[in-house]
């Protein structure tokens, strides 16, 4: 019983990091462009198919990684251009989400027309093994995916905290016009943000493709989880999105182990519904209150 709990906690931890990564990929795109990048679902599926087409047919792994990174970046930038066009045409944020849903539908259908609806596995020999730590089994793919996501999140944190990128991102999120007047190169910031999103998409596509299977609809699941996570966390913050995703990931695994996998999606979206009822702004205000309290405490300590 105790071992089962520890194992589910360990699985939940890795799942939480994956869901957190998914939420951060959506949050970064949303922060930079104010567009909820729903079409990311199609980019995830496209990336997985590219991997299958290259590495699955014998191309070197490094070449495959480079190729899917380029393809994920390219697809994300095409979608960014589409959202920018919609905004320029006077469509508001809600309309852009609807447009993104249109692109997701079209993209998924195009992938199914091109590759068919058969499910393929991404599992390579190096993904299959697992290590054992005091009776806890941790699969290679979980370790690799979590490490990659944490490294990317660290790079994102480093870029946003130690450079002016974070400030520019926030200023664009609040008012893109004023940010541009103040000298922020909004296009460059958006391109970099969507590149970060693309890098996370590559890891997510490999994780989902190896855990489940590669189908044209494989991007729907991470998309829905990502949307739930950024709403639970609170729109407009990368940290809140990660926290939201992490919590949902842990709950997802615990519900799956103790109540059965059929209730996982119901539990996640039940929590989302409850959050919208009780805290429509998500966990963000709570996180901000903690941060502002810490700042006040620090100021108090400095003055005394």
């Amino acid at each position, binding site marked *: 019983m105790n071992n089962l709990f520890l194992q589910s906690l360990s699985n939940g931890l890795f799942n939480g990091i994956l869901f957190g990564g998914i939420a951060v990929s959506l949050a970064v795109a949303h922060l930079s462009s104010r567009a909820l990048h729903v079409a990311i679902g199609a980019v995830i599926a496209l990336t997985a198919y590219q991997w299958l087409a290259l590495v699955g047919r014998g191309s070197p792994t490094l070449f495959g990684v480079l190729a899917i990174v380029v393809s994920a970046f390219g697809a994300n930038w095409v979608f960014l251009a589409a959202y920018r066009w919609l905004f320029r045409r006077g469509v508001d944020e809600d309309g852009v989400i609807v*447009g993104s849903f249109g692109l997701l539908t079209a993209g998924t259908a195009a992938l199914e027309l091109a590759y068919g609806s058969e499910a393929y596995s991404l599992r390579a020999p190096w993904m299959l093994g697992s290590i054992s730590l005091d009776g806890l089994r941790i699969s290679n793919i979980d370790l690799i995916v979590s490490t990659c996501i944490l490294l990317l999140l660290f790079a994102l944190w480093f870029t946003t905290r130690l450079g002016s990128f974070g400030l520019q991102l926030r200023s664009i999120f609040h008012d893109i016009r004023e940010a541009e007047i103040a000298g922020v190169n909004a296009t460059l910031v958006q391109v970099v943000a969507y590149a970060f999103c693309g890098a996370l998409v590559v890891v997510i596509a490999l994780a989902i493709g190896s855990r489940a299977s590669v189908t044209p609809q494989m991007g729907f699941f991470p998309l829905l989880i990502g949307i*739930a996570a950024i709403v639970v966390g609170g729109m407009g913050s990368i940290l809140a999105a990660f926290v939201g995703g992490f919590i949902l990931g842990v709950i997802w695994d615990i519900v799956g182990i103790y109540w059965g996998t059929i209730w996982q999606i119901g539990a996640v979206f039940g929590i989302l519904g409850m959050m919208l009822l009780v805290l429509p702004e998500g966990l963000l205000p709570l996180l901000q209150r903690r941060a502002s309290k810490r700042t006040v405490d620090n100021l108090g300590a400095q003055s005394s």
Partner: protein
Amino acid sequence: MSAYISSVVILFLLYGLLCLSFDFLAGDLRLLSLATPAMAGVGAYAAAIADVSWAWPMWAGLLSAVIAAALVGFVLAIMSLRVAGVYFFLVTMSFALILVTAFDQLRSVTNGPTGIRGITPFDVAGLSTLDSGIAVSGLMCAAIAVCIVLLRRSYLGRRWRALGEDRLAAANVGISRTAELLKAVPLAGAIAGVAGFVHAHVIGIVNPTPFDLTAAILVLSFCIVGGLGRVSGALVGAAVGVLLPEMLRFVPIGDAVSQQPLLRQLVFGLLLFMFLAIRPTGLLGRSKAKGGLEQA
């Protein structure tokens, strides 16, 4: 009427009912709901259970479908009292997912992915099964369309439009968003329930697939292509949505029949995007000056 044309007309009427339910909320209150097909699913299951399990007469099945879908609409309204705009869209999306999961997993009630079969078809005296389906669904569609037009011209409709145009201004003149949502969302649910009832008796099988998120996105795109805020826009959108794939049968891409739903998804996904950018008011929607999709 040949069987092929009859089935196309029935498909148009089914989507027409769903589009009317979607437009009922989106047109005036500017609330885009992805839960419309899922609520129709609730109506369809209620009608199917009333018919197959309890052998109730059809009018009782219709009543149970409408009440069940309206009750689910009421729950959705309560869930969305504190949210608007993007958040309402996301609430309806999560609500639809929960409902479709429930259709799939509550096997003792819904029979899971296999669904409920053997539902009694419509039988109008002297007409074939397909033509009876057309007659009943056409009648329902026309009756609902007239009711929506009358409602939109009424005091209630004007209150909803005011709420959709400017929530703050509406609140200042005493229009309570809570009260209006608790009326409008269950009513939209009831319309979806009628669509579900018609679906159950015309198709003869009720399973979760026709009520999933893909169907919701299709209904959304039909309404945007047709134009939000007008009954005629919803019906024209449904007509384009049903007729266009039929025309795509003649496009020489692989096995056109099996790939037809995919072609429809592809074309409508792109059309949705293009209409948003180039003609946000849709084919027949209200003019931009009166509030187009930009504010939806």
